[in-house]
């Protein structure tokens, strides 16, 4: 709770679209004291503060996984608007109507894409991701993510690879062969939120047409 409070309008790389491709897939992180979750809910990928609005428990403790957006404490389940739709004992003990439920919607966070890369931030308003990354870098990163779209076996970047950094992301590129992404945990997040992945071109292992 004592860590420095980072700028909540800053974007942080979270994962790729593939990580959130199936219903109920989720990925979590933390920015300062704020836990965040991005989740696929019936095909929509949305981001919230990863905290139940009932009694404030973290909803998803795992760094990633697949399961309903359901609080482990009392079983409250939330929809893509963040509104609680499953409330055990609601008829007898809460009797929350639609308005009452809306008052208890999860606190929203922001989610943006750069190509196939997914970024999140705490604030709901602020500079666009493209503004933070810069137009050129945004375009290049988006292109790279589309070119290297196939997950590969983890590999360490060689010294001769091209490298650059943006947001919490270290990018290493061996042109035509592999893209290596190393996402550092945002300020306040533990090492378990660090992520590395290697991506290959779509046709890397197939014979290219003449």
């Amino acid at each position: 709770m004592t860590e420095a409070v980072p700028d909540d309008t800053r974007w942080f790389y979270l994962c790729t679209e593939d990580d959130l491709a199936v219903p109920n897939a989720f990925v979590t992180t933390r920015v300062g004291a704020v836990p965040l979750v991005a989740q696929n809910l019936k095909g929509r990928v949305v981001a919230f503060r990863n905290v139940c609005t009932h009694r404030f428990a973290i909803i998803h403790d795992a760094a990633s996984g697949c399961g309903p957006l359901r609080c482990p404490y009392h079983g409250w389940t939330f929809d893509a608007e963040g509104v609680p739709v499953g409330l055990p004992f609601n008829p007898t003990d809460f009797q929350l109507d639609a308005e009452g439920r809306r008052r208890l919607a999860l606190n929203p966070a922001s989610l943006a894409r750069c190509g196939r890369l997914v970024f999140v931030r705490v604030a709901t308003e602020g500079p666009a991701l493209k503004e933070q990354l810069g137009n050129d870098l945004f375009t290049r990163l988006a292109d790279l993510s589309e070119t290297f779209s196939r997950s590969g076996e983890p590999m360490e970047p060689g010294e001769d690879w091209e490298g650059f950094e943006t947001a919490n992301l270290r990018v290493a590129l061996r042109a035509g062969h592999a893209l290596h992404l190393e996402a550092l945990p945002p300020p306040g997040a533990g090492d378990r939120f660090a992520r590395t992945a290697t991506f290959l071109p779509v046709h890397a292992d197939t014979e290219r047409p003449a």
Partner: protein
Amino acid sequence: MTALFPEAGGFLPHHHFWTEEGLALERERVFGRCWLYMGVFDATGAPAELTADMAGLRFTVRRDAAGLSGICRDGDRVRPLEVDCCGALVFARVARESAEDGLTLAEHLHPYAERLAAMSVNCVNPELPVGIPFQANWKALVENTMDDFHGSTVHPETIHPAVHPDWQTHLTTERFGANSDSCWRLADGTAGWWAKLDAKLRLAKFADEAVYRHIFIFPNFYLASFYGATVIPHRVDPVAPDAAVLRWQLFLPTTRLETPRERAFHRSTAAYLLTSASGVIEEDRPVCEAVQQGRAAILGNGVYGRRERRILDFHVAMLAQLAGTAATGSRP
């Protein structure tokens, strides 16, 4: 709508759950003023000592030929304690300057002093005290223990099946200020298990009741009992703004511990109950810690259902105690 959306001023501000300032104020106005549970002396009457550490205060209660006495150390500052008992349960508070200044222990426990005294008769055959650290503010543990809703989600294979399947119908909760008494009817299978145990051990019982009872006393004590026999005093000790220790002790009182076989059976039963109780607490620990992590990030004030009012009672009592507007010595 039976849910209650608390208004500002009706609950503790969230930052009280993680700031040094919050804990310092509690040290002075809650733990430095309220009656606090210290423990149970053995039945020998021999000189003995109980100690407790809460929010940086060190409490020591002594029993000797002159009776009960105690001191509270706060760094270099040493203050005398006022010590009193409710049956076998020993309580103390930092002594007030005037005899009229503050509630008696019986007033503080009101209206549960007699019930607690009756239950405390069963504080015999003690097991070793247990302390389980939580990475959470002490109040998160208090809130959790007064929460009737998490049985099916947090304890689906332990305490939840031990109580009656229709627990909502059979749960009765009395509230008086921040003190309360919650009573859960045991599941038939659980009651049957206790009945067999009773037949074998001839349990000492303070009441014929096939229930799990839970009496909470402000600010950080609760006495749990099963089947009107086993009693388990619990105390939540603040260690740091985001750390606490849940201390508890199991008593399995029996009227028959004469033969080696009876003693062995009692020992193995007590060990089983200790393991079970520890298992339940180990299920509570991650959710309390998850609340500690989540509360710092929430923008709203939550909502409290019909059976969660005890938690708000506790908040209201804390606010009064911290503001210095509660009766000194704290009638919750």
